[in-house]
């Protein structure tokens, strides 16, 4: 579904060049939920922008559903790291969620159904007529998520969406994402720098090295599909996986290659 082949991105400034990512290759199958972790500044957002067709990789290519990405693909939604700034302050919550649908040439009833459904899914049905600036940070984030799912994407990209919310809201939103993923069967790439979050959410965790960035490790998360904040997080296997990802990130920082796949 999502193919990233040898993506390299160099930002060319006036008098300096920054190699944000060196060489990334991985593949997500249709309907997969993968988490991408990596240290701050390692190029996660850069990678996301390349996948979303907002940036052209310096070399390498991205394919979505077998088609090379040259501009933003049609059935893709993105939740940006700066979610607050990604909402239109002059549109209501409802207007924000509906805007992309207007471009999709959907009928008015269909649009209304999608908006209502999405807002109910994220628990914001009551705030449909509020403006983003009347909402808390966590609620704004949920508006961005509602907009993403109302679009009915086949691929959903999320960039550290929970970085700015408190622990409780964060836990709720994590469960929300898993619920939405199961319900709408999308392919999800979820970027985070929180190891626990990555293991809890994903079927798979991709670990990026620090700069120059490559894929350091690819960990399959063999936890049961039904996850729960209490039981899953206290699961022995969860602890093992978290330790594995943690040590890979440490290796990445120290510039070591991935250790041999740990026996499971």
């Amino acid at each position, binding site marked *: 579904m999502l193919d990233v082949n040898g993506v390299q991105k160099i930002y060319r400034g006036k008098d300096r060049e920054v190699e944000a990512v060196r060489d990334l290759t991985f593949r997500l199958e249709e309907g997969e939920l993968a988490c991408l972790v990596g240290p701050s500044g390692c190029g996660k957002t850069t990678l996301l*922008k390349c996948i*979303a*067709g*907002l940036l052209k990789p310096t070399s390498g290519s991205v394919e979505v559903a077998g088609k090379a990405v040259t*501009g*933003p693909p*049609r059935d*893709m*939604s*993105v939740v*940006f790291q*700066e979610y607050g*700034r*990604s909402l*239109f*302050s*002059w*549109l209501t919550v409802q207007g924000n969620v509906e*805007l*992309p649908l*207007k*471009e*999709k040439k959907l009928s008015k009833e269909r649009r209304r159904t999608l908006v209502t459904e999405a807002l109910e899914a994220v628990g914001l049905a009551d705030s449909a007529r509020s*403006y983003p*600036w*009347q909402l808390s940070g966590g609620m704004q984030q949920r508006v961005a998520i509602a*907009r993403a799912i109302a*679009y009915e994407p086949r691929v959903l990209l999320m960039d550290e969406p929970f970085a700015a919310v408190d622990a409780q809201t964060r836990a709720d939103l994590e469960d929300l994402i898993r619920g939405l993923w199961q319900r709408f069967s999308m392919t999800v790439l979820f970027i985070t720098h929180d190891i626990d979050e990555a293991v809890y959410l994903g079927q798979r965790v991709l670990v990026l090295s620090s700069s120059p960035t490559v894929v350091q490790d690819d960990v399959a998360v063999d936890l049961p599909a039904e996850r729960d904040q209490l039981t899953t997080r206290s699961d022995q296997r969860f602890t093992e996986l978290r330790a594995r990802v943690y040590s890979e990130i440490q290796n990445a920082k120290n510039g070591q290659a991935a250790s041999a796949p740990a026996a499971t």
Partner: protein
Amino acid sequence: MTLVIRTVRITRRGAVRLTQLFLLPVLLILLWWWYSSASASYYMTTPGEIAATFVEVWFSERFFVDVLPSVGLLLTGYALAAVLGTTLGVVLGLSSRMRATAEPVLEFFRAIPPPVLVPLLMLLVGVNTPMKVALIVSGCIWPILLNTIEGVRSVDPVLADTCRCYGVRGRRWLTTLVLRSASPQIMAGLRQALAIAIILMVISEMFATTSGLGFSIVQFQRSFAIPEMWSGIVLLGLIGVTLSTLFVQVERRVLRWYDGVRAAARDE
């Protein structure tokens, strides 16, 4: 009982507001009254006299001959400047290349005080309404243009990326993203332009014309009709206040979201 209390409270608040609004004007008028009646100067007229003259002069045929055409002229020039200024501003704001090309020229024209264009425009366009409109446009287009350029340039890149991802383009992109993002700056430009437009309307009518508000005031002055002259100035002031009150109403509605964003930012 509560209803009574509330009504009383509302009336009290209304009274405070009214006092705030009118206290200073009333004081100033009284001061003027005292000064003008004490003064022996022929050119100082008491407010009472001016008010009487005002009714006499402007509540007449003059209203249709001199006032309405002037206001029409003002609004035409202003509207034209608004349309041209925002259109050009959006184009220049979106294209850095065109901006780089146009910038030196814009700076040059902006530096020319509009009244000095009058002789030139009289030669080029003639002494007629288009000349006056052109003068108003040439003066009040700059704040609109420059503010629009700034506004368009400051569109949030995250919001622009959001539009790209969700395929928002064309007209909807222009109206929902670009113009709305830039609306606080555009409104600021329009507000400055309104004041300039009023000044230029008067100036345009002071040269070689035979009607209009500006002409009337100059003519009264030349024929030593001093109370009439004062009443013309008062009328100009009233027109200015009315227009800016209307403007504030429109602005409040258009920028409701912006006030909300700012209030929310303050509370944090």
